[in-house]
């Protein structure tokens, strides 16, 4: 029950931030849509048609962009948030949460992941309408989204661990974001060996689940294993860094 209160506190905080900064939220959504539309136009108008099979079909590209948005959303919510909390001077108070900073950050991660999925769903809908890309959701889409969200949370916790130590690391995170965009587009045209690439099987499963594709048990298994591995790595990295910053007196410093 106490954990539920901690989680709901994060949900309330996210909702308040969304309400207080609504114009910014809408502008962000608009910017994401425009950004994808520009990429889409470039791919469909400027690229020779024979190169398009290498980057996948429209649905794949759109859903890889959605996967990118979802991962980056969680990544920003955790890693950027640590930097911001340290700057504001409230990070030490977060560490006084029941169960400590790690638990609270994971709960924040879950809360923000839910919010990002909602936001991404709107984005997919709008972009599908604008570009005319057809979507055909299958019954296993919640599983695919959950696997991707878990992996994204694990990846974000690892990045949060870096933010916890270095604090002023936003430039590096910008590079990571661009890297992620390229990465997700590069795995849009699915190849068998991509099951070994981080987050790729979950993203592929998501793409399949929303474009009328079929359930692939092996890919799902890889996605699950990866997500758990990423989550475990994230927990370990954050635990290690949390201990280190408390030893070196860096927790509240910016």
């Amino acid at each position, binding site marked *: *029950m*106490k*954990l539920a*209160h*901690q989680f*709901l*506190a*994060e949900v*309330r*905080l996210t909702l*308040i931030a969304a309400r*207080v900064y609504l114009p910014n939220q809408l502008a962000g959504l608009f910017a994401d849509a425009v950004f994808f539309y520009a990429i889409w136009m470039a791919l469909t108008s400027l690229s020779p048609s024979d190169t398009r099979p290498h980057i996948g079909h429209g649905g794949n590209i759109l859903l890889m962009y959605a996967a990118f948005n979802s991962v980056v959303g969680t990544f920003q919510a955790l890693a950027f948030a640590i930097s911001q909390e340290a700057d*504001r*001077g*409230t990070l*030490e*108070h*977060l*560490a*006084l*949460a*029941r*169960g*400590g900073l790690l638990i*609270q950050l994971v709960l924040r991660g879950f809360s923000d992941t839910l919010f990002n999925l909602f936001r991404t769903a709107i984005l997919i809908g709008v972009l599908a309408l604008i570009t005319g890309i057809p979507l055909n959701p299958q019954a296993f889409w919640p599983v695919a989204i959950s696997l991707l969200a878990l992996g994204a949370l694990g990846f974000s916790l690892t990045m949060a661990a870096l933010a916890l130590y270095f604090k002023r690391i936003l430039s590096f995170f910008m590079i990571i974001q661009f890297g992620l965009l390229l990465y997700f587009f590069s795995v849009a045209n699915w190849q068998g060996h991509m099951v070994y690439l981080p987050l790729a099987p979950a993203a592929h499963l998501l793409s399949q689940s929303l474009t009328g594709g079929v359930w692939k048990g092996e890919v799902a298994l890889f996605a699950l294993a990866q997500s758990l591995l990423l989550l475990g790595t994230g927990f370990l990295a954050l635990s290690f860094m949390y*201990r280190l910053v*408390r*030893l*070196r*007196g860096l*927790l*509240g410093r910016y």
Partner: protein
Amino acid sequence: MRLLVQNVHKRFGPVQALAGVSLELRAGEVLGLLGPNGAGKTTLVKVILGLLLPEEGEVLLEEEGRRRRPQGHEFGVLLEGSRNLYLNLPLLANALYFGGIRGLSPKEVRPRFLHWLERFGLKERLHAPLASLSRGMQQKAALALALALRPRFLLLDEPTLGLDPVSRGELEAILLSLKGEGIGILLTSHDLATVERVSDRVAFLKGGRLFREGPTRALLREWAGEGYLLRLAEPVAEALAEALGPGWLAEGKDRLVFLGEWAALKEALPRVPAEVLEVSRGEPSLETVFLRLFGREVPKEPFP
């Protein structure tokens, strides 16, 4: 129930911030933690909260004969400066969030927070963003939240910072009433008058070492010894104290304290190069003790 700090060592690079500090905070008492800037007070508070890990030593909570490590959420905390709440959020949203992350429901937090806001005269600002409040009001709001979390121990780092005299008086009354409710309070402050009025015991830190701890009144009597207060016609107490040497301390701008026998004061009075309006015998204050312990080195040059 008591909080035990046992042989805590904390080092930051070449600086030994805490060197074997041991003390205890009992339920229902106020412990004043005093020391000059850089003495290690805030470091000690953060070690107790678990925000810093010591290289050696530990912090334990003893309850019904059993000892365990305390958790951060068991403390009400006010950290120095404005680092306690979100500036852009309304007071109530802050309270619900910081209460929530400590496992408290809005139903538990809201009435308590309202109660304390009312005590501090801020009830009407419940829905105002923290940033719209003055520095002192922000401090009061942070205090109200720390109290609303119904902690077992309160750790207050410079709680009177930015408070007007009326609010400071109100805070002192609140701290005294909390003692009655069995809450243990660790108070670090440079506002020595407040510490003197509310603390049952004081502990002095210097260079990361705890060199004395005991009941406030007993230490005042023991350390200050016999003393006399001289009221000056001009605000030159600090310069005079430095020039007159050991045994002389400035208290405020126009009061000079002489620590010694009456006969010695009679002999020294003609050498005081300022008009003395009044000489009285008084209780030594914590400020006097503090200045005696941590005061600057007396310059060798004679008074001009």
